Every structure is written in structure tokens, then in C-alpha cells.
């Protein structure tokens, strides 16, 4: 029996002001792509482990999704509401008439759906609130009658049905289809899989994203990750030194962009030391095509130990020592640089 497992599609996501449109179309395109794939591969089950929508779905969106499902009548779709598209009292999920091949795990507590003619049950429940702190995925009783049992689950952090990977190692499920964490990872190989977001939602969702294509044969499951390349955020850490000027830096980034595939977008982190007088212009780099973020962690090239020696009891030396003795955090670290910079300025 073949299946596709996806999660966190976040349809309708529009976080971030400017990238509203791009994000929106990515998620719909990627979703439609998965449906096409399910048809091509003739998978029997499509598992959607929560957060299909970024927020409460609108009826027209549900209709579109339902239409997509109707394109693959041979595939049984099982889905649940996650923490983002939770079943609010007014949720359109509650009354929406799904197509015949769609099974929505609507209950608030552990339930299952039996898929006709497949000897398969899919367990799961839907979120009725944004947060669930009880560990509801522990000690699930599974019917043992030779059926293939799959768990569809969403969460994993402390505010969203906390669980540890161990919780599923000993379970009786043939496959555990997880969602919520945006990074795809096989927690237990071929058995417990966090699908990851279908496409990156935030800049922090770096690396490849896509779906898992799996097959269960006689209670043995194998899965394979299939990346979808609409968008990928690639972290690019550049170590700067005072000798590297702005134009050299730009040239380097341009060259790096040229060899990278078109779907890759870059988030640049500048580290190291820069010229005190000619710091890197991060704003200019931000304007470059396919550069989505520039974090400037460059510091002026100060050798605090030497400065402390040279200016021992003077204000500069005392300043460095005073700040180094403070509890270290981002503010004190910054203040150290700011103060030294101000004192050393001509």
C-alpha cells in the first residue's frame, strides 16, 4: 500500500509584509503538485498531519482543496486540524461537506477511521484549541487484528501535545505520520516521520522541504523523501575581514547566486571583523536579488585584551572590564562594542 505523507502546508500563509503573495502561491502550487504526484504514483492514502491551512480555512479555500482531492478519487485522504487551523467554534471545517474519498479526523479525542477495502485504520484527532499541553499521544490502544495501523499526529513541543521520539519507538503503529515541526526528519527511520513544512514558511525554515512517499508491505514500512523545489532558504555565512571591501563581498555573493539553482533564496549572516571605518553596508546587500535577509554580526576589529593592557586603569580599560564583568547578553555585548567604538573614534 502506497501513501504520501505531508504536513504544515500553511495554505493562505502571509506572514511578513512584502512576501505575502509569493508565499501564498508557493503553498498552493506545492499542494497541487502533491495531489498530482499522488495521482501519478497511484497512492492509496494521502496523509495530512495538520496545519493544512495557516489560519482558519475559508469555505472557498475548502472548496478548492476539496476539488483538488476530487482529482484523485482512487486515493483516500485522511486529514486533521492542527494548531493553526484548529477547530474553532465557528470553524468552516465543522460543516464542510467533504468528498467521498476524504476523511477528516474531527474528534477532539483519539479516534480512528477505517479505510474500506484496505484493511487500514488511521488514528488521530483534531486540535480544538491553539494549544494542547497534555501528552495525548502516549499510551494509545491500538486494535490488533492484522489491520495496518497508522497514527496521524501533530505537535511535539511543550505547548502542542508534547511527546518524545521514544514515545513511538515501542508503539504498535506501522507508521507514525507527524506534523508541526517545519524541518523534515525521520525520527525513527521508516517508521516515525516528521514531514516538515511542505515549503518553507519563514526564513528560519532552511534546507529542503517536500513530502514523504512511503509504502507499507506486510507491516513493513519504507519511506522516501521527495523534495519540492518552489523555494528554499539557504543560509550563507560569510566571514568578513577588514581587507574585504563591500564590492568584493557583493561580487562573491553574486557569483554564489549564479551557480545556485533559481529556487534557492539566500539569508546571509556576516560574521568576523570589519574595518572600523568602513563597515559593511548590510542594507545594500539586502537589495540584491534573491537575498531575503542579511544579518550583520560583524564587529569592529578590536583586540580587547590588548586594549585592556594598554589602557589598564584608564577609562577605556575600565570600561571594557566593567562590561565584561556584567552578565553577558546581547545588550552587554553590543554595549561593549558601542562604547569602545565611541571612545576610540577620532
Amino acid at each position: 500500500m502506497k501513501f504520501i505523507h505531508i504536513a504544515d502546508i500553511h495554505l493562505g500563509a502571509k506572514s511578513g509584509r512584502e512576501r505575502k503573495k509569493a508565499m501564498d502561491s508557493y503553498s498552493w502550487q506545492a499542494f497541487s503538485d502533491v495531489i498530482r504526484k499522488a495521482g501519478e504514483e497511484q497512492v492509496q492514502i494521502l496523509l495530512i498531519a495538520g496545519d493544512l491551512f495557516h489560519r482558519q480555512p475559508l469555505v472557498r479555500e475548502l472548496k478548492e482543496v476539496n476539488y483538488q482531492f476530487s482529482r484523485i478519487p482512487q486515493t483516500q485522504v485522511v486529514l486533521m486540524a492542527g494548531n493553526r487551523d484548529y477547530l474553532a467554534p465557528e470553524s468552516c471545517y465543522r460543516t464542510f461537506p467533504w468528498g467521498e474519498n476524504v476523511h477528516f479526523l474531527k474528534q477532539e479525542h483519539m479516534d480512528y477511521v477505517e479505510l474500506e477495502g484496505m484493511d487500514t485504520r488511521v488514528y488521530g484527532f483534531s486540535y480544538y484549541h491553539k494549544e494542547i499541553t497534555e501528552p495525548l499521544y502516549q499510551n494509545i490502544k491500538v486494535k490488533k487484528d492484522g489491520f495496518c495501523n497508522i497514527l496521524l499526529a501533530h505537535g511535539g513541543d511543550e505547548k502542542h501535545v508534547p511527546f518524545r521520539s521514544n514515545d513511538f519507538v515501542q508503539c504498535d503503529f506501522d507508521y507514525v505520520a507527524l506534523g508541526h515541526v517545519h524541518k523534515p526528519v525521520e525520527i525513527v527511520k521508516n517508521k516515525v516521520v516528521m514531514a516538515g513544512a511542505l515549503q518553507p514558511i519563514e526564513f528560519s525554515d532552511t534546507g529542503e522541504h517536500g513530502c514523504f512517499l512511503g509504502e507499507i508491505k506486510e507491516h513493513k514500512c519504507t519511506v522516501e523523501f521527495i523534495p519540492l523545489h518552489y523555494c528554499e532558504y539557504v543560509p550563507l555565512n560569510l566571514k568578513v575581514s577588514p581587507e574585504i571591501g563591500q564590492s568584493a563581498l557583493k561580487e562573491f555573493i553574486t557569483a554564489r547566486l549564479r551557480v545556485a539553482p533559481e529556487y534557492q533564496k539566500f539569508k546571509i549572516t556576516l560574521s568576523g571583523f570589519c574595518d572600523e571605518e568602513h563597515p559593511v553596508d548590510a542594507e545594500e546587500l539586502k537589495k540584491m536579488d534573491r537575498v531575503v535577509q542579511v544579518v550583520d554580526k560583524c564587529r569592529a576589529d578590536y583586540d580587547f585584551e590588548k586594549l585592556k593592557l594598554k589602557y589598564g586603569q584608564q577609562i577605556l580599560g575600565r570600561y571594557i572590564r566593567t562590561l565584561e564583568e556584567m552578565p553577558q547578553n546581547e545588550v552587554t555585548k553590543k554595549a561593549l562594542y558601542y562604547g569602545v567604538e565611541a571612545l576610540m573614534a577620532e
Partner: protein
Amino acid sequence: MKITEIQIKNFGKLHNINVRPLPGLNVIYGENETGKSTMQQFITGMLFGMEKQEKTGKNDSYQQYEPWNSSSFYAGAMKFTVGGKPFFLERNFYHKEKSSSLVNEMDGEKLSVEQGDLEMLLGGMKKTTYENTYCIRQAEIETKEEFAEVLQNYFVNASTGSESDIDLTGARKRLLDKKKGAEQRYHEETGQRKEELEKIRLEENILKKDIEQLKGQQTESVVNIPGQPINMIIPERDTNQMAEYLRDLRQKKKQQGYLWRGGISLVIALAGLLLGILNAVRHPLGQGAPGWMVLQLFLLFVFLGGAGSVCHWFQKERRLKKLRRQQQEEAKELTISASRDMEWKRVHEEQEKQAKHQAVEALLHEQLAEKQAMLINLQEEIEEALEAAEEEKELEQQIQAYELAYTTLQTLSQDIYQDNRNQLEEVMSQILAEMTHGKYNTIGLDDQMNLMVEKDNRSLHPWQVSQGVMEQMYVALRFGAGGMFTQEESMPIILDEVFAAFDEKRLEAALQWLGRQNGQIFLFTCQRREMEILERNHIPYGKIMLSR
């Protein structure tokens, strides 16, 4: 630092002079115009160099001491020790051939004055500071105005060893400027977010109104069209009543016609019959006139005709009734079937209406659900927009960091300032106490760096005390400050006629105090009484006599 040998080749009025001072107190005696000031200038010139100024002014020491006989030969040398190590320093002051050499005499290592090696040996001291502290001249016993500034800066910048070029006021201003910049950007960011938030809130309000309206429409539609089917009253078939009426009317007219005609003929017949009978009575059988017979016959026919017509009318009437009955039945049947049609049509229409109504209701419901979902989403967006964005958080941190840097600098400078000030005041007070035999033992500085002395719990300014005490106070200040600039190894102290206003007693106390000091002191004087007192008190000193 101790100067061990002064070699003047050509410097102002001094030529080929070779002096070896003692490491302690040295008295340089000479009458006026013998070159005491020239010697002082030579020492500071050797230590800090001498620059020819572009604009020639009165105070240009370069020109002042440029030898008049051979301006190209304007040089000298000096031997000194720093930390016990001997050094040899040579300088040519002539601006066209300016040169200098510095050699460590212990290992012969060549050092470079240009590269700052000499400055390092002097502990980083600058010429201005030296002239304001170690170098005390008669004319300037009241410290120069700029000395207050030097002291201020000194209190802030240094507490030991070297000075620095750190400009604290500038640093603080830079921090404030940067903080302002960050604040401005922060306000821009938050402003944008707030604007966004307002937009969403507006959308929310519109949506809420829409929802209210939709809810209103829903209840309205429920009131207007009750859910159950209405009682169907099927109306009479709409037959052509007018035609019926006209037909009946015509029928009646016809009947009346028959009756009239039949009635007349009957009356005539009856009259004829009666006449015939009467005739027959009057004329027995067979006796009647034939005329009468004819009439009789005619009347009989008429009678028969009338009876026949009445008969005919009745028959016709019967037929008509039958027809009517038939027609009525037909009509009835027709009506029944037609009303069935009607009913079906009605029901169908009703169903359609209801379906329409239901569709409207469903649409309303769907719209409502949709809008409510949108409302939840907007409310979530509002919640998210209430939270500061990454950029804002970063800027907030920057502002905090600038603030922290600023306040830290502020407190540190105050601490250092206070430390240094307290330290200086302590040293000064000690010096003054020794020189005045405990008469004045507390000397301090006010906020404008003016000297204050305490006497009988009163704070006095220098001009409120005697000239002698005032000069003692300034000497104490110079010595105290000088001692603080270089703690490791003090610089040679130059005293130029500073004790001229001291009376015998005070001079003795001051010289006794000088004799106890570790540093090298050059006391320039044009009077012999300093030497006399030193000899009387058995204080060792080096004697350097300058003569014309």
C-alpha cells in the same frame, strides 16, 4: 627619570656647556641674564622636541633660542636613566636639518624618537602636561587657565601611567547621536506596524458589521417565509361564467317565446271550441252551417297546433336540461382535472420557492461562516501584529546597548574623576601640611578646579590667604598633580624662582620637604639664600653655577 648629563653645544646664549646633575636636588644659581630660562627650555626641548612655528610670535621658543651666531648649529645632547637603564639622546633643533638619535647605552640599541620610543620612556607624557606640572615657573605660579582643563581631563582619563587621546565628551556625544538614530528607526518600524494594525482593525470592524448584517438578514428571512409549507387552498376553476350566463339567458328567452305562442293558440282554440259547442247546441247535429264547420275545424287545428307547440317546448326543455346536465358534468370533470394540474403546479412552485429560500439561507449561512472564519483570522493577525517584529527587537536592543554604554561611561568617568580627585587632594594636603608645619592641612579643588584651602572649618580661596600661603598652595598642587601623572618614575621637576615670595621660615620648610623627595629636582634661583638654608640644614644638593 633622572638626567645624568646635560651637553649644550649651541642653544640660545649657551654654548659648550656640560653639566652633570645629581639624581636628587640640584640648585642652578645664576644672576639675571645668565641663561637660567635657556637651560630650562633646553631640557624641555630635549625631552619633547621644539617645533618652528609657521607664524612667528613672541612666544615662539624656537626663535627665541635659535643661536644668533650660527643658526644651522642649534643642537645638544642629554644623558639620562629610565628604570636604571642609561640612554643617550642627541638632537639637532635646526628646522632644516632636524634630527634626533636615541641610544640605549647599555646594549647600544638604537631607538627612534620619531616612532615614539622616547615618549614611551617618558611614560607617554605630553609637553603641555609636563609644563603644567613638573615645570613650575615663577611667572606662572598661578596655573594657566588651561591647566584646569588638563586636570579635568586628567581626572577623567588617567589614573596611572600614560595619558591618552581619549575624548570622553566626544564619545558620550557619539553614543547619544547613535542612540537617537536607532530610536528614530525604531519609531519608524513601530509606526509601520501600528499602521498595519490599524488597517487590520478597520477590516475587523467592517467584517463585524457585515456579520451583524448577515445575521439580521438570516432572522428576517425566517420570519417572512415560514419553514413549513403553507395551507394550499385550491380556488374554483376559472370557467367562462359570462358565456354560461348568456346561454341561460338565451334559453329562457326561447322558452318564453314557446310559452307565449302555445298559450295564445290554446286560448284561441279554447274560444273556438266553446263557440263550436255553443253553435252545436244552437244548431243540432247536422244543422250547423258549413261556415261554422270550417271555423270549427280551423280552431281545432289551432288548438292542436298550440298543444303541439307546448308539447314541443316541453320536449325541448327536457333535451336542454339533459344537455345542460351533460355539460355540467363535463365541466365538473374538467374542473377537477384542471385543479389537479393547478395543485401540482402550485406545489412545484412552492418547492422551487422553498429551495430558493433554502439556497438563500444556505448562502447566508455560508457567508456568515466564511466571515466568522475571516474574523478569527483577522483577530489572530491582530494578536501577531501586536508583537514587535524582529527588526524592532533588534533596534530595541541597540537602543538599550547605547544607553548602557552611555550610562556606564558616565558612572565610570565619575568614579575615576572622584578617585583621582580624592587622591590628588590627599597628596596636596600632605605636601601643604608639611610645608606649613601643619598650619594648613586640608586643600581641595572646587568644581571649577579652583584651589580651596580649609582653615578653622572655613573654605578659603587662594586670594583670601596671604601671598606666601597662596604660593605654597600652588606648589602643593603642582607637585601633587605631577606626582600623579607618573607614578612609576617621576619626571625631573623644574622650579623656577618659585620661592621668591617665601619668607625665611617658609623657605626652610619647603626646602626640607624638597630634600625628602625621591625625584630629581632642578631649582633655579638668582638668590643665594636657598643654598645657604640647604647647607645649614645639611641637605645634600648639586650646585650648578651659571655665569655671564
